[in-house]
Structure formats: C-alpha cells, structure tokens
C-alpha cells in the first residue's frame, strides 16, 4: 500500500477548506503535528510515522531547509513514501534525492484517479483550494487534468 507523508502546508490547506477527512489517508512526523496544533489550536487526526535517518545527497539545496524539512525528506526516503508538500524548495530537495513528491492539488487528482475521492468532490475541493493556495496556476492545472481525465 502506498505511503504518503505530508508536510504542514498540506494539513493547513485541508483544514482551511474543511476537508480533514483526507488526512485519514496520510501520515506525518511528530514535529508537523506539533506545528499544526500550534497554528490551528486543534489536534488533527493523522497517523504519525516514526522519523527515520536515511542519508540525503549532499547538495546546496539542503542549506535552504529547516530541520523539520530535512526530517520529512529523510523519513519519506527511508519509507519509499511519496512526500506531499506545497513548498517549492522542499519539492526541489525531494527531486535531488529521487524522492517521489506531489503537491496538494496533485494529491486531490491522484485520489480522484484512484477512486478515493469522486470526481465532483475532487473538483469542489480544488475550487475551494484556489482561494487559499499559494500557487494558483497549480490548482488550475490540476482542474484541467481532472476534466481531461474525466
């Protein structure tokens, strides 16, 4: 079964568009749960995955990441998991380390493609996300992909 490990951006966006149920399909590390608890003053229901210490490729991109970013990357790499994040710098670091990575709009489309979400629901979530998301073009692209697939 595919493991998805999520960054804080994803959890915050899903809470903000009132789609916390999706978190049932995701995992994360303890620092992310603490961060979300601090930001949204609530305990989110999401599986915790133990932080791992896989080696990362020495690359200048690591200098631009925080300790939690690096912990997420290591854990995703150790578990051969898909990292879910909306942070371009973390996406770049995942690419450098051959860690599979997608953002929140793509997560919604993958869940639609694989039957976790129905088409109408996925479209609704993407439309809500477009109001809060930091990269509007990514949501527009996800909507187009979803409509083409349908």
């Amino acid at each position, binding site marked *: 079964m595919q493991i998805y490990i999520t960054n804080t951006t994803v959890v*915050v966006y899903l809470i903000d568009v009132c789609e916390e149920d999706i978190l049932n399909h995701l995992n994360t590390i303890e620092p992310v749960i603490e961060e979300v608890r601090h930001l949204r003053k609530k305990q989110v229901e999401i599986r915790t995955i133990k932080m791992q210490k896989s080696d990362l490729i020495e690359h200048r991109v690591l200098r631009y990441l925080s300790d939690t970013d690096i912990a997420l990357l290591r854990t995703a790499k150790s578990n051969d998991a898909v990292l879910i994040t909306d942070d371009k710098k973390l996406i770049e670091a995942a690419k450098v380390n051959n860690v599979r990575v997608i953002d929140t709009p793509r997560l919604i489309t993958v869940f639609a493609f694989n039957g976790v979400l129905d088409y109408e629901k996925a479209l609704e979530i993407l439309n809500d996300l477009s109001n809060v998301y930091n990269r509007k073009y990514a949501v527009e692209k996800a909507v187009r992909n979803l409509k083409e697939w349908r």
Partner: protein
Amino acid sequence: MKNVLVNVTVPVEVAEYLDEKAEELYITRATIARKFLIEHIEEVKVTEAREKGFSIRKVADMTRVRYDKVLEILRRTGVDAKEEKELEDYMDKTVEKLKKRK
C-alpha cells in the same frame, strides 16, 4: 515581544487615511499605523527570504512570522507564482506512476 516607541512624521493625506481607517475599526490612529507598519515589514521580510530561496518553514523561523501567515503572504504577493517546469514535470511523473498503482 518587547516594544519600542517610534515617532514618525507622515504627509497630511496619510494621516487622514489612517484616521479614516481608525474610525471604521474603532481604534486609534497609532494602533492602525502600527498594524500597517508591522504587516508591511512582515511582508517584506518574508518575500525577501523566499526570493533568496529558503523553504517556507525556514522563512517562518528566520523572520519569526507564523508559518500560516507566510503561506498567506506568499499567496497574496505572488512570490511563488512563477512556474518551475522541471519541478512540475517531476511531480507529473510521480502522478503518472501513482495512477497506475492500485
């Protein structure tokens, strides 16, 4: 947070605008001026750090602006709006692999 008193001189038009906004919100001119100043400085700090290439979390740590506020500033200012084709293509490949897996 420790506070320091700052005295500034502004054009009449700016003072009139501050008074108008303060009246709408039932607060003082000084309070609204402080709010605008802090918001602007946070925005500048966040966008500068992001343009230097730091991750969202690292930007939040460095600027001491809340993580979700950093996200909101990035959205509002469009700092992340530029599409990076290599990263987009990499994520699209991941999507294709995930679609085939059941």
